[in-house]
């Protein structure tokens, strides 16, 4: 019942219907190859790959900044960076890694996988999806352009008031931080709306909420967190921007401004933000571990509900970032308690991963190794996190390297390990060739060792009292040895990622040679890992239209159950060959959303409005023209490209139902 057999409506004269096309340079783009296809694409898979690529680009920048920090701190009295430059480097390292690396890598996975895992052909709003990507990219570029335009932000990624005001930070750095992150915030907001609607509304027949893969579930929770957390940051950034650019009095202590207001607003955003970064990675390993243990995920409902619990409780713990700021004993006690409680659902997840592996036929391929890396490293980070919940201890640890150690264990040891595992796991699905497993294992062990060498010693340094955000330290405090170890570790991590880069190039070259396709398109088997969820039903790489035929879902791990059944004694038995249950990707008659120029045009104007507010309003006029033009073109663009090769739906095929009936349906459908 697709549109394949819907005939084009003919005019009475029998000729095909006349079409009008918007002309000029903005004629609706047609091509699906070459650079234009990437600039104008609305395909969630291409956008996912673009998110990942852009995040890797920023990862190189943020990683370079990390190396600068480590070289500076390798020996006492480091001379590489001045205090001022050091402030900029650590601020940009944190901001880049959080907003331009970990979040977008999560977005890459979510964009690519959500529609595939729920059996949809695309996201709910394809052009909005493209708009989100371009906002993220241009916002990130604008933020980093501060390096070239004089002075980067220097207030830390948290930009505490009043240090972030014009008095203490008179350069434009923090204005760039404000503008850049307001623009990436638009990306997060539109992405959240889009993906929430996609998950709730675009599921394949039979795909009830409790049959969705755990990755999709965690992505949904993440998007809800983004939906509600980002506007709080936005409001705080507007206040700071008005202070800095228009002379408002929000954070000026002489005018009665309250620095704690910033801390509260920032951390009400900032704490959900840490779950925004980690939950997608939890989702990734929840997909990988069952595949390589050849067992269903242990306690699926617990996995789902602990994720939801984290999503809710994540809103009640923000002030544990502020124990040293004098918020009073009652607040401290309350937030101590809630912080200890939030370790419970996280512990449930760790237990379930272990129980999934327990008694399974474990296969230690690279994705599995990285997933186990997440489980172990995140547990260490989680335990040091619980020590922060003990307020008296936390006041000692505040602003020391112990904190730095903790959040790198959860964000690098947690999120990044999970995501890298996800790359190895879904690489064949996205690119049509597998990464070399031996090199993957080399990458894993180097990264694991380098990571622990870098951040393990920071626990010790922190407990010895080494302050963070300080550009150097003196000889004789006992900091020398572990700092040197830490710097060596940072270079080991660098080498491990060079191995990954080599792996990507070498594996691709080898696959090309093996398939004899020159520079053409690589393809490989649909289901290289004996996977469980719907995306493995599709050819690798995924065809533009995703599903030839939208699957009807009957159970959790639908694809697995199409391959395997159970004998009476519960033993696994194959009921169908993989080749027989995967789709061929040969359907060429699926109606797809047409590409569009307008998302990039609209997003392109936004940084210029930012530059305009910082420098001269003339830039803002230019940016405004771009934005208004983009909106106009977007709205006026026909929803269906009249010249596209695919069939339009018949006019009148979209007769709406009476609204009363729709309301009744809503209720019925929501209970699912």
């Amino acid at each position, binding site marked *: 019942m697709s549109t394949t057999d819907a005939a084009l409506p003919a005019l009475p004269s029998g000729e095909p219907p006349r079409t009008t096309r918007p002309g000029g340079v903005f004629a609706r783009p047609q091509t699906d190859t070459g650079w234009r296809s990437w600039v104008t694409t609305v395909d969630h898979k291409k956008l996912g790959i673009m998110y990942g690529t852009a995040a890797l680009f920023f990862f190189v920048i943020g990683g370079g900044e990390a190396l600068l920090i480590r070289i500076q701190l390798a020996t006492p009295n480091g001379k590489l960076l001045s205090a001022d430059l050091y402030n900029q480097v650590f601020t940009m390292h944190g901001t880049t890694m959080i907003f331009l690396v970990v979040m977008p890598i999560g977005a890459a996975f979510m964009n690519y996988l959500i529609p595939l895992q729920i059996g949809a052909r695309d996201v709910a709003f*394809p052009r909005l999806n493209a708009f989100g990507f371009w906002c993220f990219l241009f916002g990130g570029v604008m933020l980093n352009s501060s390096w070239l335009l004089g002075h980067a932000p220097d207030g830390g990624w948290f930009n505490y008031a009043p240090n972030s005001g014009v008095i203490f930070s008179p350069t434009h750095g923090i204005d760039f931080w404000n503008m850049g992150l307001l623009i990436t915030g638009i990306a997060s907001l539109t992405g959240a709306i889009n993906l929430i609607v996609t998950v709730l509304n675009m599921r394949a027949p039979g795909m009830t909420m409790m049959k969705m893969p755990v990755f999709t579930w965690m992505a949904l929770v993440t998007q809800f967190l983004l*939906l509600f957390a980002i506007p709080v940051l936005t*409001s705080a950034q507007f206040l700071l921007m008005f202070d800095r650019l228009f002379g408002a009095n929000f954070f000026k202590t002489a005018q009665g401004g309250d620095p704690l207001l910033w801390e509260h607003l920032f951390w009400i955003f900032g704490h959900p933000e840490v779950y925004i970064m980690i939950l997608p990675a939890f989702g990734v390993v929840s997909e990988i571990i069952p595949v390589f243990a050849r067992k269903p995920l242990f306690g699926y409902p617990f996995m789902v509900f602990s994720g939801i619990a984290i999503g809710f409780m994540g809103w009640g713990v923000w002030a544990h970032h502020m124990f040293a700021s004098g918020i009073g004993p009652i607040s401290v006690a309350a937030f101590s308690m809630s912080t200890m409680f939030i370790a419970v659902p996280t512990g449930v997840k760790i237990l379930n991963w272990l129980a999934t592996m327990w008694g399974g036929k474990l296969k230690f391929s690279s994705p599995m190794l990285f997933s186990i890396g997440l489980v172990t490293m995140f547990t260490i980070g989680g335990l040091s996190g619980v020590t922060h919940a003990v307020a008296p201890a936390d006041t000692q640890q505040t602003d020391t390297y112990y904190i730095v150690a903790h959040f790198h264990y959860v964000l690098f040891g947690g999120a990044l390990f999970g995501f890298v595992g996800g790359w190895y796991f879904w690489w064949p699905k996205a690119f049509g060739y597998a990464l070399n497993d031996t090199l993957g294992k080399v990458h894993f062990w180097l990264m694991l060792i380098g990571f622990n060498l870098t951040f393990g010693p920071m626990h010790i340094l922190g407990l010895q009292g080494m302050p963070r955000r300080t550009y150097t330290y003196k000889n004789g405090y006992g900091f020398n040895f572990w700092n040197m170890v830490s710097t060596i570790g940072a270079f080991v991590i660098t080498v491990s990622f060079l191995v990954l880069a080599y792996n990507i190039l070498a594996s691709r070259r080898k696959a090309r040679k093996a398939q004899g396709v020159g520079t053409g398109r690589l393809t490989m088997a649909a289901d290289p890992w004996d996977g469980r969820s719907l995306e493995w039903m599709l050819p690798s790489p995924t065809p533009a239209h995703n599903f030839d035929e939208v699957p009807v879902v009957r159970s959790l791990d639908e694809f697995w159950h199409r391959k395997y059944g159970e004998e009476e004694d519960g033993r696994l038995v194959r009921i169908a060959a993989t080749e027989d249950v995967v789709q061929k990707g040969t359907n060429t008659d699926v109606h797809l959303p047409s590409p569009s120029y307008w998302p990039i045009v609209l997003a392109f104007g936004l940084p210029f409005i930012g530059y305009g507010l910082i420098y001269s309003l003339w830039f803002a006029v230019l940016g405004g023209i771009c934005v208004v033009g983009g909106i106009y073109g977007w709205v006026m663009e026909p929803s269906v490209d*009249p010249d596209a090769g695919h069939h339009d739906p018949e006019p009148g095929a979209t007769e709406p*139902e009476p609204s009363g009936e729709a309301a009744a*349906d809503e209720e019925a*459908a*929501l209970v699912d």
Partner: protein
Amino acid sequence: MRRLRSLTDIAAPSTTEAGIPVAVPDGESHGLSHATSTGISNEKLAMWCFLGSECLLFGGLISTYLLYKDKAVRGPKPHELYAIPFTSVSSFVLLMSSLTMVLAVSAIQRGDQRALRAWIATTALLGATFISGQVYEFSVFLKEGMGFTTNAASSAFFTLTGFHGVHVTIGIVMLLSVLVLSLRGRLPQERAEAVEIVGLYWHFVDVVWILIFTVVYLIK
């Protein structure tokens, strides 16, 4: 065969859903326009999500005002200057615009284009009256010595009410777009939901104003 997208239609369902034979598991057919898993159209669900997000934006700004309302090192505090009768009248005007919005939605659901245009125009006019009142109020405050940069309380007041004013203004632009679409015949009865979604936004902006009027103007 060129069809324009409706105002709020960022990706017409036809583009993404037409190819997907989504049937409800029990085999009940929903028809194409409601072929979503929840039965709520993508556009409406998206608007609800967006409004949920807006709650937090205004939550941040309202909290800021509550924290700062008495913080004035120099210059008058906002609540020394409020003209409650005047603001009550303009609040009433905005409230009434919600009623006319409802009537507009009901008109297009009946397919009554003439009533739709009348009520949409009335709603936009009431909204514009409210905005004019706000501009007048701001100019009076400015004359009485309370500008945006005067003190922390005034910064918080102008930021909060200014953000709300911008939201109303965007709502007016949406209403005028609906009016133009209707006049050009691009808003048939089947697209009633587009007007309904604009209405959702408009009611939200009204509800926020009730909150602002209460906590900012009425509570000392």
